[in-house]
C-alpha cells in the first residue's frame, strides 16, 4: 500500500504531438451503415484459430456462434449481423503482408436480426468461474491490441490470487481517442464491467489509470466509480508508452514483472477499458463481441471520428464513410502511429484488435532519409525497457544476431520510441522485428535439423537392431543345424 504514496519513476518514453482533440471532442458515431459483406477472420486473437461450425449458404442470426474456440488459449467468433454465409476461405489479412488467412464471409440481409438469448438478473450471484466461462463464450479478447483471450486472463488472476486489477485507460498512442470517448460516454457500463471482472477474479481492488490529458474521461469515470470503494480512478502522467502494461504496473503498484513471468504471478492483472465494456455487455446483456469503437483519423481524413463498426468491415468502406482523400494518403496505419503497422491497401477487414485506422499524409510521416548513426544515445534514454537500440542495430547490420540477442533483442517491446526520436531516421524497430523473425526462423531451422538428425539416428539404430536380430537368428539356425547333424551322426554311429 505504501507504494501508492511514494512517487514511482517512469523510465524512458517520449511525448509526441497528440492529434487527439479532433476526434476526442466528438461523440462516438453509431450510425455507420451496415456493410453488404463482412469478412470475419477465424483468428482475431492470440492462440489457436477458431474452428468454423457453419456451412456455406447457411442462414445465421446476429450473435450466432460461427466458429468455436479450439484449445486452451483461443476465442470463438460470432456473426456481427444476420445474413447468409457466402464463403469460408482464404482472404488477405489485416497485416502488413496482407497474406491470406481463413475468413468467413457473411452477406448481411439488412435486418440485423438478433438471436434471442435469455439474460440473467443478478450476475453477482454467478460463481466466479461462470463469469470467465461467459466472457470466454462471448469471444472477448484484450481490446487494447494484445488480443489475449480475456477468460484465460481472468482464470489466471483467480488462480494466482492477485490483489490488484489495473484497468488501462492510458491510451498513450497519438491520434487514438476511442478509449477516451468510451470512458466519457459509457463510464457506468465500464465500471460495471470492472466490478464483474473483480467478481470473476475474486479480487478486492481495482485501479483505473487514465492519462492526465483526458480530464473529462477521468471525471466521468470517477463519478461512475464513486459508489464502489473497491474501484479507484487515478490520473497518470501523459508520456508514451504509459499504456505498456509493465510501465503501468510499475507506476501504479511499484512492482516489476520479471522476464519470463506473467503479471498475475506478481499479483497484478491488467485489462483495457474496452475489454471491461465488452465484459459488461457479455454478462449483463448476453451479447458477444460483435462490434467495437475505433478511431479514424489522420491528415488525409475528411471527417475524422470515433465510430462503432461491426467486426469484419472492410477498411475501404470505413474510409468512404469518413471521406478519406486517396491522393493525400501516404500511409495507412492500423493502430496508432507509434506501434501500428502500415497496411498495403484498404481491402482488409477490421478485427477485434483494431483500435484505429489512420490515413496519414506525407507531411505527418517521419522522414525516411536514413543517415549514419551519430551515437547521440537518444534511443538509449527513451527506451522504456532499458535497452541500447544503437548497439543492437549495429550488431544486426553486420548480421551478428546472436550478439543482438545477448544485449536484449528479445526484451524489445517494439514501442517505437527509438525510431521516433532518432535524428538519423534509422528505422530501428524495423531492424529489431526483422532480427527477431530471423532468429526465430533460424531456431526453427535448427530445431528441424536436430529433429531430422534424431530421426536418422533412430532409424540407423532400428536397422542395426533388425540386422543384429537377423544375425542372431542365422547363428541360431546354424547352431541348430550343426546340432541336428551331430545328433544324426550319433544316431548313425549307435545304429
Amino acid at each position, binding site marked *: 500500500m505504501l507504494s501508492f504514496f511514494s512517487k514511482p519513476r517512469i523510465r524512458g518514453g517520449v511525448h509526441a504531438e497528440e492529434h487527439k482533440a479532433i476526434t476526442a471532442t466528438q461523440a462516438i458515431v453509431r450510425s455507420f451503415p451496415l456493410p453488404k459483406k463482412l469478412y470475419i477472420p477465424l483468428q482475431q486473437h492470440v492462440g489457436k484459430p477458431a474452428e468454423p461450425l457453419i456451412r456455406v449458404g447457411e442462414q445465421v442470426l446476429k450473435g450466432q456462434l460461427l466458429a468455436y474456440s479450439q484449445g486452451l488459449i483461443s476465442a470463438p467468433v460470432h456473426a456481427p449481423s444476420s445474413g447468409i454465409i457466402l464463403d469460408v476461405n482464404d482472404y488477405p489479412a489485416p497485416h502488413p503482408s496482407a497474406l491470406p488467412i481463413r475468413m468467413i464471409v457473411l452477406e448481411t440481409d439488412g435486418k440485423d436480426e438478433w438471436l434471442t438469448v435469455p439474460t440473467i438478473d443478478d450476475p453477482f450471484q454467478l460463481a466466479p468461474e461462470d463469469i470467465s466461462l461467459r466472457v470466454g463464450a462471448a469471444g472477448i479478447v484484450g481490446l487494447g491490441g494484445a488480443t489475449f483471450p480475456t477468460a484465460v486472463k481472468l482464470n489466471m488472476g483467480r488462480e494466482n490470487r492477485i490483489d490488484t486489477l489495473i484497468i488501462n485507460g492510458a491510451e498513450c498512442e497519438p491520434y487514438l481517442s476511442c478509449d477516451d470517448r468510451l470512458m466519457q460516454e459509457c463510464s457506468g457500463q465500464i465500471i460495471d464491467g470492472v466490478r464483474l471482472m473483480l467478481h470473476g477474479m475474486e479480487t478486492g481492488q481495482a485501479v483505473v489509470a487514465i492519462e492526465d490529458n483526458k480530464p473529462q474521461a477521468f471525471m466521468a469515470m470517477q463519478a461512475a466509480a464513486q459508489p464502489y470503494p473497491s474501484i479507484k480512478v487515478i490520473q497518470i502522467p501523459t508520456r508514451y508508452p504509459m499504456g505498456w502494461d509493465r510501465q503501468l504496473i510499475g507506476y501504479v503498484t511499484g512492482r516489476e514483472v520479471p522476464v519470463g513471468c506473467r503479471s498475475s504471478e506478481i499479483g497484478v492483472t491488467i485489462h483495457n477499458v474496452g475489454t471491461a465494456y465488452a465484459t459488461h455487455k457479455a454478462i449483463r446483456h448476453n451479447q458477444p463481441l460483435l462490434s467495437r469503437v475505433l478511431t479514424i483519423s489522420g491528415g488525409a481524413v475528411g471527417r475524422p471520428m470515433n465510430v462503432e463498426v461491426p467486426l469484419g468491415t472492410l477498411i475501404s468502406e470505413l474510409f468512404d464513410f469518413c471521406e478519406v482523400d486517396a491522393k493525400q494518403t501516404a500511409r495507412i496505419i492500423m493502430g496508432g502511429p507509434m506501434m501500428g503497422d502500415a497496411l498495403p491497401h484498404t481491402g482488409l477487414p477490421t478485427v477485434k484488435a483494431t483500435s484505429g485506422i489512420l490515413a496519414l499524409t506525407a507531411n505527418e510521416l517521419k522522414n525516411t532519409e536514413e543517415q549514419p548513426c551519430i551515437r547521440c544515445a537518444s534511443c538509449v534514454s527513451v527506451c522504456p525497457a532499458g535497452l541500447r537500440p544503437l548497439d543492437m542495430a549495429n550488431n544486426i547490420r553486420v548480421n551478428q544476431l546472436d550478439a543482438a540477442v545477448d544485449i536484449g533483442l528479445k526484451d524489445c517491446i517494439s514501442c517505437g520510441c527509438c525510431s*521516433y526520436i532518432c*535524428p538519423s531516421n534509422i528505422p530501428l524497430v524495423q531492424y529489431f522485428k526483422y532480427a527477431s523473425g530471423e532468429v526465430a526462423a533460424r531456431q526453427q531451422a535448427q530445431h528441424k535439423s536436430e529433429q531430422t538428425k534424431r530421426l536418422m539416428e533412430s532409424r540407423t539404430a532400428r536397422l542395426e537392431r533388425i540386422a543384429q536380430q537377423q544375425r542372431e537368428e542365422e547363428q541360431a539356425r546354424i547352431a541348430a543345424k550343426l546340432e541336428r547333424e551331430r545328433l544324426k551322426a550319433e544316431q548313425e554311429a549307435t545304429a
Partner: protein
Amino acid sequence: MMITTSKPNSGAHIGANRSVRQIMWQVMLALSPATVFGLWCFGWPAFNLFVITVSSAMMFEAFCVRLKGRAAKPVLMDGSALLTGWLLAMTLPPWAPWWIGVVGSGLAIILGKQVYGGLGQNLFNPAMLARVALLISFPIEMTTWANVSPLFFAQSPGIAESWRITFSGLENLDAYTGATTLGYIKTEFSQNRLLTDILKNYSATLNFIGWTRGSLGETSTVLLGLGGIWLIRQKIIQWQIPVSLLLTVALLASIFHLIDSEHYVSPFLHLNSGAMMCVAFFIATDYVTSPNTPTGQLVFGAGCGLLIFVIRTWGAYPEGAGFAVLLMNAATPLIDHYIRPRIYGRDRQGKPLEIPKP
C-alpha cells in the same frame, strides 16, 4: 474506393522534429557568441584563420566522400565537417599561419574521422586529435599567443597586414604576443616564484569576459558557459559530462589549494577559463566519442576532469584538455561495455529477476 500505398513499414511512423543537421546547427549557434567575440578580439588574422580552417575542413570532407564514390553535397549538408572545422579553429592560436589551419583540418577530417568510416564511426574527437597532433608537431606556432587587438582599433592589424600575418608569418613576434595565464603560471613556477607573486596582475573579470590571450574562440568563460547551458536547456547535450567534469576539477583543485595555496592554483582560476568551458560543454560532450549512458557519462566527465587537473598541475603542458579528452575517448568503448542500463525485468547481470514472495 481502394487505396494502395507502398512501403510497408513498422514502428514509429511519426518522428520528433530533430535531424542531425539541426543538432549540428544548434551546436554552432551555441558556439557563435564566443566565436564572434574571439574574432573581434583578435582581428582580421583570426578571421582569415577561421575561414581557412572551416573551408579546408569542408574540402577535405568532400574529397574523402568523392573518393568513396558518393555524392559530396548531401554529406556536407549534415554540417558535421563544418562543425569539426569550426571547433578546431576555436582551439588554434588566433594568429597562426594559414597552413596550421589546413594541416589541422586535414588531420581532423581524414585521420580523425574519414579513415574510420565517416560520421559516427571515429574513436577520437577529430578536432582534439588534430589539435594535439599540431601541438606536438609544431610547438612554436601552436604556442604563439597574440595579444588582444580588437577589430577597428588603431594599433590592430588592418586587412592588408592581416594577410601578411596569415600567409607569411609575423615579424617582430614579441611585440604582438605573450603567454596565456596558465602558460605564464607554469613558467613562473619553474622560476620558483609563489602564486601570490605570480598572480599580481591577474584579473578574474577579464578572464571571465575573455579579454585575454588564448586560443581563437576559447578565451571567454562567460560566453562559452552560457552557450553550453543553452545546449543543455535545448536538450542537445546532457548535463552529466559537463557537471561531472567541472566538479571533479573544482574538487581536486580545492583540495590541493587548501593544502598549499602557494603552489596550487585555486579552483576559481581553474574554472574561470574559456578553454575549460569549451571542453566541458562542447568537446567532451561529442556524441560519437563519449559514452551513451548517463552513468557512463558521469564516469567519462570525471575522468576528463581528473586528467585535465593532473596534466595542468604536474604535466609538461600548461593546458591538458586535449590530451585528457583523447585518453578518455579511448576509454569510451570500455565504459560502454561495463556500464549498461538495467534491462526491464532483469538484474544487472541480465538474469531474470526473482518472483517476489508474497
